């Protein structure tokens, strides 16, 4: 099973002829992801990845010709909101937006339309998702994974890699790893992902990685306390030393008015039955302690 991406994923890469798009499309294909199409307006009729992937002008064409059912977006920030709307408007139900630097107020409108269409957006400014051994969509290095039964959800990119690598080194595999993105307005929250993991028969344990800012981790913790009560849960929160009022790189990572602190998030997670690690390298140990074998 796994969630969001898997063996039944038929991926269209929006922006496949760009530098980033082409590089990552190749990485995804080499990992085993079924990359069925790419789009770049005006470049329809060409092929990408050494002739293996047809390029279309529109996502509508890509869906009609290839049966694409998941999209990943690598177009620059000025065009990315439109690319998300194009995917959703063309019938794609699962959209990953890797692009960073999209204005937050644009995203308010985009998430509204995505929700009305009944589609799911992951990101923007996210590393994507990998279901080890099945498919990877986004930019997460394939080499860090191992097949298994722990679901990982995180706001970050490289911090997620760090945690996943530590798990893999310790022999603990993953069902799906998802980076939801570090922007203030994202399509999919920690809580949304926990709901998906809760319904996935192949996910037996949860790793939640968060950071300062907002209250998404607290909301996820509150839900997990009742709905994932018997599931082993481990968490890590970045930003314990972050000063108030400064944006720590991610547009969403800011402590304001005393809210969004790491301490508050750690307390909420512990109260909900999560074992909270002091370092990403402790995550495997805590998973074992929580009953993961």
């Amino acid at each position, binding site marked *: 099973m796994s969630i969001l991406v898997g063996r039944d994923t038929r991926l269209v890469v929006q922006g496949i002829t760009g530098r980033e798009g082409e590089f990552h499309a190749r990485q995804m294909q080499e990992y085993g992801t079924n990359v069925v199409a790419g789009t770049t307006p005006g470049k329809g009729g060409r092929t990408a990845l050494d002739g293996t992937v047809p390029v279309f002008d529109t996502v509508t064409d890509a869906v009609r010709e290839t049966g694409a059912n998941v999209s990943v977006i690598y177009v620059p*920030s*000025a065009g990315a909101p439109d690319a998300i709307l194009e995917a959703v408007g063309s019938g794609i139900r699962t959209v990953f937006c890797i692009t960073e*630097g*999209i*204005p*937050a*107020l*644009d*995203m*308010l*409108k985009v*998430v*509204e339309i995505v929700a009305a269409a009944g589609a799911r957006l992951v990101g923007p400014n996210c*590393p994507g998702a990998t279901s080890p051994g099945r498919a990877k969509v986004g*930019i*997460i*290095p394939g080499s860090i994974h191992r097949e298994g039964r722990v679901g990982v959800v*995180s*706001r*970050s*990119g*490289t*911090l*997620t*890699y*760090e945690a996943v*690598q530590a798990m893999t080194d310790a022999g603990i595999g993953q069902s799906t790893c998802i980076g939801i993105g*570090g922007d*203030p*307005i994202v399509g999919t929250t920690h809580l949304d992902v926990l709901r998906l993991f809760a319904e996935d028969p192949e996910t037996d344990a949860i790793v939640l*990685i968060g*950071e*300062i*800012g*907002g*209250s*998404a981790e607290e*909301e996820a913790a509150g839900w997990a306390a009742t709905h994932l009560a018997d599931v082993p849960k481990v968490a*890590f929160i*970045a*930003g*314990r*030393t*972050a*000063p108030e009022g*400064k*944006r*720590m*790189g*991610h*547009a*969403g*990572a800011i402590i304001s*008015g*005393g809210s969004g602190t*790491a301490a508050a998030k750690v307390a909420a997670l512990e109260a909900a039955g999560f074992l909270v690690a*002091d*370092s*990403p*390298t402790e995550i495997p140990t805590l998973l074992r302690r929580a009953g993961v074998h």
Partner: protein
Amino acid sequence: MKIQEADAKLLLRAQGLPVPPWTVARSASEARTAAATYLAHGASAVVVKAQVLVGGRGKAGGVKLARTADDAESVASAILGMSIKGITVRKVLVGPAAEIVQEFYLGAILDRASRRIVVMASAEGGVEIEEVAKRDPGAIHRETAHPFLGLADWQARRLAFAVGLGGVHLRTFVAIAKGLVTTMTTYDADLVEINPLAIVRETDADGNSLVKLLALDAKITLDDSALPRHPDLEALRDLGEEDPADVEARTHDLSFIRLDGTIGCMVNGAGLAMTTMDLVKRAGGEPANFLDIGGGARADKVAAAMRLILEDRKVQAILVNIFGGITRGDEVAKGLIEARSQQHREVPMVVRIVGTNADEAQRLLREARFETAATLDEAAEKAVAAARAVGGAA
């Protein structure tokens, strides 16, 4: 990006919101001239306010009243050059002092949880809204703006009645509340705050007294991601108030925040950069900065990042932590070697590079005799130990 009160008022005025007149003065004599003009036109006093991007200027003595032009000059001369939370005041705003009848709070924020713009109003104006939220959350009234329609009239009316502005000020309040949301969407702000929004008493030329609603203070924060499409707003950036290191970081597209510690950190990725700082602290040290070199950083960017870290004289050791994904480890290693060859002072460095092209990076670092570490925890411990050794020798 934060902008100064005077610039925020400019944006509010452009959206048709009622803002009292003001003049920005950079010297005491400019403040005197401005004050004299307002006093000659009927103001009984003027207010002189420090223009700084940090809160708490009132408590710090950065806001003063003056009844004469002489007063205004001496008050301005005291405020100009004063330090508020480490920021030197270079400008003051001078305007007619308002006779305040009652103060309110009105603000619009980007609410992450509801993914909406939320407008908040309170009858407790003039104090920080966070304090009101803690002391009496029920005193803050909220309305959620629609992403396409903005704030509806009925929502603005509901706020007005909730804070007790249902009478003669109703129509003005509705216009101001809706204007707040329009200001936010027009300029891609993530915060627009009027605190206080005040009922003020004014006397017209015939000696008749009248009351009206005015935005006496304004605070706007702009979304950095949207600045490329607002070049006119980018021009409002107050470079005089910025740390030169911030300006330098921005030109190299580095995400950099200076802190108080002694361990310089260079990391790829914001979450990992915060984690690296946390682990430095856990190992008994204090981070000197947050620095995210971003994805796909090449050698020249790494070298620029290293210069930024070394400009901070407090730095006694440097920790480099790279998890290669898009970023290639060998590129970072080359950048580090280049940066060290140009380095003017000897600072111990601990480097940990894993992921894409890490083997090549290890070979380069070994040949250049860099101290390396296998894990993040080990790297943090080595960096803290190195800083202690330097600190002890000093």
